[in-house]
C-alpha cells in the first residue's frame, strides 16, 4: 500500500513539473493572438513574408506545447518574431520612401538648374539686346558725324549751332543733344568731356570765356535731359587748340566748335583732357 502511494506521488510530481495546460499560459496566448492579427496584415504579407513564415513556424510549435517553460520561451520568441516581421515590413516601406525622395531630389535639382539656365538665358538675351541698342545708338551718334579718336568718340557741335558770339544753343543742336543724352543714360559707365573752342578773333580771355560758356550750355542741356553732372567734365580752351587755319573764314568757322568726347567705359575724364595729353 505504501508502495502504491509512493509511486502515485512520484508520478504526480513528475507530471506536474513537466506539463501544464496551454490555456494557463497567458503570455503565450497573447503572442498567439498577436500572430493571428499580423497574419492578416496585407503589408506584412507582402513585404515581410519570410519573417511571417518564421513566425508561423513558432506559432505552430506553440500550439502543441505543454511545458510551461517552453511555452514561455515560445511566447517570447513569437512576440519577438512578430516585431521583426513588423520592422521588416517597415524597412521595405522606408526603402520605397527613400527611393521616391532620391528621385524627388534629382527632380528638384534639375528644376533648379533649369531655372538657373533660363535665368542665364534671359540675362544673356537682355545683355545682347542692350548691346544691340547701345550699338544702334552709337551708330546714331556716328550719323551725327561723330568720329572715333584715341580719346573716344568725338561729336562736334559746330559754330552754326550756337547764337553768333553767344553761348546759347540753337534748336538745330537739339537732335544731337537728345541722341547723346539717350546714349549716356543707357551707358551709365561712360563719362563725357565737353570742350569748348573758338577762333583767334577777339581777346584771349573773351575767347576762353565764350568757349567755356558754350561747353557749359551743352552740359546744362544734357543735365536737363537726365544725365548726371558727375559724369560730365567741362573745359574751355578758347583758341588754344585750332583744328584749321584762322587765316580764312572757313577755317575760323571750323575752329569755333564744342567737342563732346564720349569716353570708353570706366575712363576718368581727367585722364583725357587735352592739357594732360
Amino acid at each position: 500500500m505504501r508502495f502504491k502511494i509512493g509511486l502515485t506521488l512520484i508520478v504526480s510530481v513528475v507530471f506536474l513539473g513537466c506539463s501544464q495546460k496551454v490555456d494557463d499560459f497567458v503570455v503565450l496566448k497573447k503572442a498567439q493572438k498577436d500572430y493571428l492579427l499580423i497574419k492578416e496584415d496585407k503589408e506584412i504579407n507582402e513585404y515581410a513574408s519570410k519573417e511571417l513564415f518564421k513566425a508561423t513556424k513558432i506559432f505552430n510549435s506553440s500550439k502543441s506545447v505543454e511545458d510551461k517553460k517552453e511555452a514561455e520561451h515560445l511566447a517570447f520568441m513569437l512576440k519577438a518574431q512578430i516585431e521583426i516581421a513588423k520592422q521588416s515590413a517597415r524597412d521595405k516601406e522606408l526603402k520605397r520612401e527613400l527611393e521616391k525622395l532620391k528621385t524627388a531630389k534629382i527632380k528638384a535639382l534639375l528644376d533648379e538648374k533649369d531655372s538657373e539656365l533660363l535665368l542665364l538665358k534671359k540675362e544673356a538675351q537682355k545683355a545682347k539686346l542692350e548691346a544691340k541698342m547701345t550699338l544702334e545708338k552709337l551708330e546714331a551718334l556716328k550719323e551725327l558725324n561723330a568720329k572715333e579718336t584715341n580719346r573716344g568718340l568725338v561729336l562736334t557741335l559746330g559754330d552754326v549751332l550756337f547764337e553768333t558770339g553767344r553761348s546759347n544753343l540753337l534748336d538745330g543742336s537739339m537732335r544731337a543733344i537728345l541722341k547723346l543724352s539717350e546714349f549716356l543714360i543707357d551707358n551709365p559707365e561712360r563719362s563725357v568731356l565737353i570742350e569748348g573752342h573758338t577762333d583767334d578773333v577777339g581777346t584771349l580771355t573773351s575767347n576762353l570765356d565764350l568757349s567755356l560758356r558754350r561747353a557749359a550750355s551743352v552740359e546744362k542741356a544734357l543735365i536737363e535731359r537726365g544725365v548726371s553732372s558727375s559724369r560730365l567734365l567741362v573745359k574751355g580752351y578758347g583758341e588754344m587748340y585750332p583744328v584749321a587755319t584762322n587765316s580764312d573764314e572757313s577755317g575760323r568757322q571750323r575752329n569755333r566748335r564744342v567737342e563732346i568726347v564720349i569716353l570708353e567705359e570706366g575712363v576718368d575724364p581727367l585722364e583725357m583732357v587735352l592739357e594732360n595729353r
Partner: protein
Amino acid sequence: MENRIFLLSLGTLMFIFLGCASKNPPLQDISDAKMAILDAKDAGAKTLASDMFKNAEQKYQNMQKLMQEEKYIDAKYAAQKAYIQAKLANTISKNIKIQQEIDELMSEIRVIKKDFAILPKDEK
C-alpha cells in the same frame, strides 16, 4: 507482479526524465546567436537600439553560464532568445538609419526648393 509494475513505472519515469532534459549542448543555436549579435553590432545596434542589443548580449552571457552548468535546455532557450533579440535590434537599427537618410534627404529637398523659391516668379 508488483515488481513488474514498479519496473515499468520506473522505466516510464526514466523516459520522461530523458525527454525533459537534453544531453547535447545547443551548439548551432549558440553559433547563430553569436553571429546575430555580431551582425547587429555591425549595423550599429549598440547605439541605435542599445537596450535591445544589451538584452541580447545579457541573454548570451546567461547562456554561457547555463552551458557551464550543463543546463542545455535552458542554454538553448537563452541562445535562441539572444539570437532573436539581436535580429530585432539589427532590423530596428537598419530602419533608424534609413529614417535618418530620409530626414536628411527631405531637409536637402526643402533647401533646394527654398533656393528655387527665391528665383523671380517669371524665371520658374
